[in-house]
């Protein structure tokens, strides 16, 4: 990852600025912590700025009570976030790397997701759980997982999966302001990617897809770290005379069913692309829902492209074999056009 930019946001001129995704995320959290003193962050090494610099400078500005570096105690990192939300604060729970959330699943699934309902509305677990996820630098099976689909299956949770700096910033602002518990999947492989972000970051509503490209031949639905490759594939397809309608869902719960259904109603062809394993991935839900809503008669072809049902291997040639990439996306889209 290239070194993050130096300048502090307050020294920048207002308006749009081109910054990295990780810096966009940093500024979004910074803005919200300045706005609302009940927002705070807890997690390992956050006082030092976080593993990826997401919280650089926070300790100096907000102090150790609001920027809490914790022991390696994932159950309590997660559960303490919940407890603190129950008395009216708004914690950002930093999990360091997604895979470690496995050490805090009771607190997440049995407690956070259920307290509001179980207690008949008395509780509002207004937490954001940040989980940098996905394949990144050959980190192998225990540090590369993308299990976002799991959490769409759990009532009570919001699932955000941004892919651009602006979306990351805007969705993180929404997440922090939301009274719902939001699982925020930082796309760690895209942290160094740059893009324009406004000086004053406006919240982006949950459940609205971003149309990355307009086209009438097939609908490509995607999200998170694989989006740039889907966009690249779409450009290559264009050159081959295939016009793809590309929708970046941005959030998986809620998700923009209307935009997807409308697009597929036009194109008749749907390809869902995600980094996660295909089996049981959220692509299945997208396909099932579209087929339920449009009926088989409204469709020409549908397919999903994800990782085979294999753990992520360490060796680069093995990882390359399995992971989704631009060439595979192009090939899948071309196959979908044949019938």
């Amino acid at each position: 990852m290239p070194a993050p930019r130096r300048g502090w946001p307050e020294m920048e001129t207002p308006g749009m600025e081109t910054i990295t995704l990780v810096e966009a995320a940093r500024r979004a959290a910074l803005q919200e912590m300045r706005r609302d003193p009940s927002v705070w962050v807890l997690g390992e090494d956050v006082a030092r700025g976080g593993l990826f610099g997401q919280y650089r400078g926070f300790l100096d500005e907000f102090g150790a009570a609001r920027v809490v570096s914790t022991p390696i105690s994932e159950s309590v990192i997660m559960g303490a976030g919940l407890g603190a939300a129950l008395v009216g604060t708004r914690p950002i729970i930093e999990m360091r790397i997604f895979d470690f959330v496995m050490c805090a699943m009771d607190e997440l699934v049995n407690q956070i997701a259920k307290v509001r309902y179980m207690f008949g509305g008395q509780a509002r677990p207004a937490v954001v759980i940040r989980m940098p996820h996905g394949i990144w630098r050959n980190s192998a099976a225990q540090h590369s997982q993308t299990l976002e689909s799991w959490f769409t299956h759990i009532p009570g949770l919001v699932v955000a999966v941004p892919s651009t700096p602006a979306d990351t910033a805007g969705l993180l602002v929404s997440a922090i302001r939301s009274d719902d518990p939001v699982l925020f999947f930082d796309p760690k492989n895209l942290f160094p990617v740059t893009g324009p972000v406004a000086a004053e970051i406006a919240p982006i509503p949950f459940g609205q897809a971003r149309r990355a490209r307009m086209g009438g031949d097939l609908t490509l639905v995607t999200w998170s770290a694989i989006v740039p490759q889907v966009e690249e594939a779409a450009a290559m397809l264009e050159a081959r005379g295939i016009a793809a309608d590309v929708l970046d869902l941005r959030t998986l719960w809620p998700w923009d069913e209307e935009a997807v259904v409308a697009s597929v109603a036009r194109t008749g062809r749907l390809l869902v692309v995600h980094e996660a394993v295909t089996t049981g991935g959220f692509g299945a839900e997208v396909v099932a829902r579209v087929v339920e809503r449009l009926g088989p008669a409204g469709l020409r072809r549908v397919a999903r492209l994800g990782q085979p049902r294999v753990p992520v291997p360490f060796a680069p040639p093995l990882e390359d074999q399995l992971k989704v990439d631009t060439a595979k996306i192009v090939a899948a889209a071309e196959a979908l056009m044949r019938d």
Partner: protein
Amino acid sequence: MSRLGDNRARLVALYTTMCRIRAFEDTALAAHRAGEIPGPLHVSVGQEAVAAGICLNLRRDDRITSNHRGHGHALAKGAGVAGMMEELFGRAGGHCRGKGGSMHIADFSVGMLGANGVVAGGIPIAVGAAQGLKLLGRDSIVACFFGDGAINRGPFLEGLNWAALYRLPVLFVCEDNGVAAFTATASVTAGPGVAARAESLGVPATSVDGNNAAAVDAAAARLVAEIRGGGGPQLLHATTYRITGHTSTDPAAWRNPQDVEAARAAEPIGRLRERLLAEGVPMAELEAIRGEAMAEMAEARAAALAAPWPDPAAAWEDVQDAGAAQGMA
């Protein structure tokens, strides 16, 4: 007049709370056996002194977290009885609108942040609540109730270390009744016990006879004052005995009858009653307290039984704000 002086009111308050808990539990058990209460039911018969003694020292703006056996804690913290009983019955007027039941009883209006169906599940929540309160600059504290079974789960270690580290205002209360479900905890717990574990995690520990309400009260008074004064977390290890089975459907046939006999003799309500009588509090007064408690709970039972069920539409409410409608399809 009794010779107790100022202490009289306090002991009578303890007695009253214990009688109310016992009456609630007995009533709930009977209602469950009569098929009026659905779902699993865990009662705390014999353990009343711990809830009563701790909560007498808490303010309304203090918080508690509890476990699967939370009726006594809730009642002692001031939760409304009608709402509790209706919750057990699954009725609309329950504190959780019938969505939680016995195992998820909660009354945020009095600082009762919830029972919990997961052993040790309340520990991380309690330390977080304390951290939040501290961040907000409040001087409220949190009491965290759990059983002797919970000290073998990881969150016990993580939570105590955490509370000590940030000097959080938490009183950990281990209600040690010697069993976890159907297993004697001594048979699955290595080492010298919960107090030593707490001390090794930087949390000072005190042991108390958990069947002696006055002793629990005295210990709690001291610990709560220290905690509220900024002294950091404390653990109170209260030994007690649950006379009934694990759940309402467990006849506790696995218990040693002699133990049960001994436990009945040592149960906290009878003990405090003996003491109060010996100190000159009139029998009639104590009987009235007990009678009132029983009447209160009988009335709550009748009311709950007659209370309306939740509107079926409520099943769809309070899931979340974003995307709630989408999930109903």
